[in-house]
């Protein structure tokens, strides 16, 4: 197959055009925004966290097909997952989800949503420690 058609296969384009869990979540426990200055991709992650698990997740964002499709797939994947499992996720997991290989530059696009999610979890954990609350 043409390598471009492989990179932009139907599943990726489908998630890009019709992203899953694509909304602002007012009742989120933590909301975190990240930006890739290289290409201007933005991701906002909204997480609801309960008993050490991701109870619900949504995202908003702007950017290339790879960054937005990977965010959409990631939200499907991590819903219900334990925080420590999400924190353990690596680029291999993202590439497996996308079903493609990527150059180092495009890998940054693909990783933006996972990086944003991990940082959101850290922020939430810090907040919980500070307020001595075991809710997370």
């Amino acid at each position, binding site marked *: 197959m043409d*390598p*471009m*058609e492989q990179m*932009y296969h139907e599943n990726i384009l489908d998630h890009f055009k019709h992203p899953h869990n694509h909304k602002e979540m007012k009742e989120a426990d933590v909301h975190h925004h990240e930006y890739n200055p*290289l*290409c201007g991709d933005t991701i906002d992650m909204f997480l609801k966290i309960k008993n050490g698990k991701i109870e619900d997740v949504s995202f908003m964002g702007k*950017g*290339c097909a*790879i960054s937005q499709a990977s965010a959409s797939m990631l939200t499907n994947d991590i819903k219900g997952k334990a925080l420590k499992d999400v924190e353990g996720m690596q680029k291999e997991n993202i590439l497996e989800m996308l079903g493609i290989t990527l150059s180092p530059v*495009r890998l940054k696009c693909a990783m933006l949503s996972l990086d944003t999610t991990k940082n959101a979890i850290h922020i939430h954990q810090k907040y919980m420690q500070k307020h001595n609350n075991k809710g997370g």
Partner: protein
Amino acid sequence: MFNVERIKKDFPILKKKVRGKKLVYLDNAATTQKPFQVIEAMNSYYREHNANVHRAIHQLSEEATQLYEKAHEDAANFVGAAGMEEIVFTKNTTESLNLVAYSLVPTLKRGDEIVLTQMEHHSNFVPWQQLAKRHGITLKFIEINNNGKLSDKSIEKNITKKTKIVAVAHVSNSLGTINDVRKIAKIAHENNALCVVDGAQSVPHMKVDVKKLDVDFLAFSGHKMLGPTGIGVLYGKKELLEEMGPFLFGGGMIKEVGWKDTTFIDAPWKFEAGTPNIAEAAGLSAAIRYLEKIGMENIEKQEKKLVDYTLKKLSGMKGVVGYGPKKKAGVFSFNVDGVHAHDVSAILDSEGVAIRGGHHCTMPLMSLLGVSGTSRASISVYNDEKDIDALCGGIEKVKKVFG
């Protein structure tokens, strides 16, 4: 007669295949490719003349010094400066502009104003913004109108007796707009302000004459005009460079050093501390010779034809939005409906077509246009209609993949 086919043959990299396709290089506003004459000049410097400049009394050092000073003269002649005392070598346009910004600080006081435009590259924006923050200077911006040109009204309104410096791009690296810097410099001077011009996108493409334009400073880069990376130029009026203090301190720029104080030599050398980029200076000389052999007027004429051809083709494409004025330099910013600039670049890359996608170091301008970025194709002396056809073919593929 302008012979693009022959020019192409001078650029070894254009024979390269990328992604199994013939390379079509249209990212010239970022950096240009180098003809073998430039590569050879640098090669020959290292093989035959390498020594430090302005130091030793041995033959190689004399050769290196001669070649390095000659490069200053070549650059001076190229932009119509009086001589090499008006030409400082830096590493790029950004460093040239930082040099001006830092060295002019002692002439500024709290409440003074610096006027920029809304279309500046970060290199002619962030240095002034940070200087303004540190020293209590007010920054003002000349606005652009809907077709990406500077508003005359806004020029008149913003440049006043409070203005000390007007810093403006000659050609916009995002929109291709050609600004009337001669007029802006005149208005600046009427208000006793200095005019600093970012010539990175104009000097490689048209005849630029600093005396005719009557600008006070002109900054440009070797690597955007077929020369090597690591060498930039700052033209400054002699009397201004004489008054200004050094930017960097160290070897090569001193007259006499004592325990308590140091005196400095004259411009340009007082602005060139440390061992400079000598091979790159030799490369820049060769690039200037190459451009002059073709003739800057010929280049301007040829590129104008290609600009018209490109605009006609792009404006005929459905779902493609272009930015910037119709009368412009060879920089084409566009977006394909519903497709991010990065995806456009990636698909064009698969066709061997190299363009740039993103904010082009003009984030404030992008926010003004209401986009996160654009795709940008930009031409040089070795581009022709076939390259533009390949670009348009690539855009059709983008539309097909995302259709």
